């Protein structure tokens, strides 16, 4: 296999592996920008994955699954909002509670309904999001050397939620950076008192941000269960929510760098899979364990050494109390 083909295949795998990270990172970004710390991304994705798998299986339509996944994730997001905004609870505690609730509830319900150790039945045909071939993908592959191959392998041939994930980055960057609503969201995360003084409801803005966070986590979870895999498995998010959170911090709470961080983590994962059992010149056979630890090691190194000064939203994690 020539080098270009190899690069294209690794990049293709990178995209697949980073989609859930991108969704969760954008979700975390919205929530954190509005001053609500959310470590419950993991739990929300897990619940979305479960709900989408169940709904897709029952109805046979992946689109119904997507709606169900988003609704389930939204419900959990509102629980978090209720605890953190209305009742001014500790946001970390609420997030941890959501993660634990999701991890337990999905397995218990799955076992009760399907009796397969928490798994949902395998999804077939229209119950899964199939890969979309973008227009001209075949044609460019044959007629445009190099770029055509990359277009066909990397850009084309992903499922609908994958394209939604990339769209979400664009929308997040535009709305947060260039609209009045985005400005208010950012303000409420920096200085909620000022927003309140201007006569705008802090609680309403924060609820809006938390709801958007739920929506995006829903897309990420649905992608996991109905596109990447074919059904739900206990704990299938496997820490992706936390990696996404790391990506947000790594990117200093900015959308485009967060996308870059997610793609980097995805790339490390993809390389880890492909490097397995490969003999590198000068090093010899790379042990499986070393390859698998690579993404985590890189995360630590990058977070410790290269990020510089982290600048989180100033009111992040603080419940807003109106002065009386």
């Amino acid at each position, binding site marked *: *296999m020539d080098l270009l083909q190899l690069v294209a*295949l690794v990049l293709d*795998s990178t995209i*697949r*592996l980073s989609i859930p990270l991108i969704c969760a990172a954008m979700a975390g970004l919205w929530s954190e920008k509005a001053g609500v710390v959310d470590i419950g991304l993991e739990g929300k994705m897990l619940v979305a994955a479960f709900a989408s798998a169940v709904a897709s299986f029952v109805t046979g339509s992946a689109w119904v699954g997507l709606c169900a996944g988003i609704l389930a994730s939204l419900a959990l997001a509102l629980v978090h909002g209720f605890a953190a905004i209305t009742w001014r609870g500790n946001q970390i505690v609420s997030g941890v509670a959501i993660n634990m609730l999701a991890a337990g509830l999905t*397995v218990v319900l799955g076992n009760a309904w399907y*009796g*397969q*150790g*928490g*798994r949902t039945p*395998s999804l077939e045909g229209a119950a899964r999001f199939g890969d979309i071939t973008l227009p001209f993908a075949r044609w460019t592959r044959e007629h445009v050397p190099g770029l055509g191959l990359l277009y066909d392998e990397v850009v084309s041939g992903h499922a609908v939620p994958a394209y939604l994930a990339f769209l979400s980055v664009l929308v997040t960057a535009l709305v947060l950076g260039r609209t009045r609503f985005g400005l208010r969201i950012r303000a409420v995360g920096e200085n909620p008192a000022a927003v309140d003084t201007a006569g705008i409801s802090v609680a309403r803005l924060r609820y809006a941000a938390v709801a958007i966070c739920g929506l995006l986590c829903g897309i990420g979870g649905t992608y*996991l269960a109905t596109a*990447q*895999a*074919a059904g739900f*498995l*206990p704990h*299938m998010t*496997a820490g992706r929510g936390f990696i996404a959170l790391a990506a947000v911090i790594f990117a200093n709470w900015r959308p485009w760098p967060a996308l870059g961080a997610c793609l980097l983590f995805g790339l490390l994962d*993809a390389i880890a*899979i*492909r490097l*397995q*059992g490969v003999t590198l010149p000068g090093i010899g056979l790379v042990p*499986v*364990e070393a390859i*698998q630890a690579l993404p985590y090691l890189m995360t630590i190194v990058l977070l410790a050494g290269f990020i510089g000064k982290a600048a989180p939203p100033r009111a992040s994690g603080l419940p807003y109390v109106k002065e009386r």
Partner: protein
Amino acid sequence: MRLGSFAAALAGVALSALAALAQQPIKPAVVYDKGGKFDKSFNEGVFMGADRFRKETGVEFRDFEPANDAQIEQALRRFARDGHSPIIAVGFSQATALQKVAAEFPDLKFTIIDMVVELPNVQSIVFKEQEGSYLVGLLGAMASKTNKVGFVGGMDIPLIRRFACGYVQGVKAAKPDAEIFQNMTGATPAAWADPVKGGELAKSQIDRGADVVYHAAGGTGIGVLRAVADAGKLGIGVDSNQNGLHPGRVLTSMLKRVDIAAYSSFKAAYEGTWKPGTSVLGLKEDGVDWALDEHNKALITPEMKAAADKARADIISGAIKVHDYMSDQKCTM
């Protein structure tokens, strides 16, 4: 008249109850591996065997699915304390726990599958996976058009390397110049239940040209077979008959008859013929095999079947020696 028939019925009930008593009703139990009862593979096979015993004899069995390692010992001990016997411990990872619990309850019978525990009240059942893997390797190589085949293992342990080693030998026997890609999913028990990773590994092998991929990865293998079927290539299932998961896209399955192991362990205890000790089940004992059914009969050509039948006869007669990875921790040919 009516009283008479009632008395007769009563006598009948009493007689059958006596007969049941004479049969020494047993209280069997199963503790599954962490893959879960319905993994469509290894654990499900044990369940099928136990369920067959239940249907035939009417004796109920208890079972438990541990969610983590700590629960294994608790479950074994709880079943033992309740007087369950025989208790089947499924999988190599239960060996240490069983060693402890079986020593504490010397009057009860224990059976462990896939590992040897040497205690006077433990029956150990292990399989010659290399022999079954050899046959599916042979079939896989014959079905391959690219002369490239893949193997995806679950957790990287000697047992799984034994599968891989048998497979490699089978492939090389059919096509000495064939290229074989081998991947392990991980180094922790989580590697048994990660279909996304399994699918990615399978895709990476297909990208490198493999058109037949064999998995020995429990629940992870569901993702492997799915990815292979999506790509229009052929997969090979393991443990249970997985041909029906993607009809026409699963070449065959390496059957490991854990169902027979579980069934015969219960049955022997039921009939009072249960014996401790180690039994090694290979092709000769029908402990391993390859699956041929309505889902894959179009994929297996008469030449392939003949070659597999010949290899099986040669292995049983000793004309072909399939190297066992676990005998020297090496896979040399």
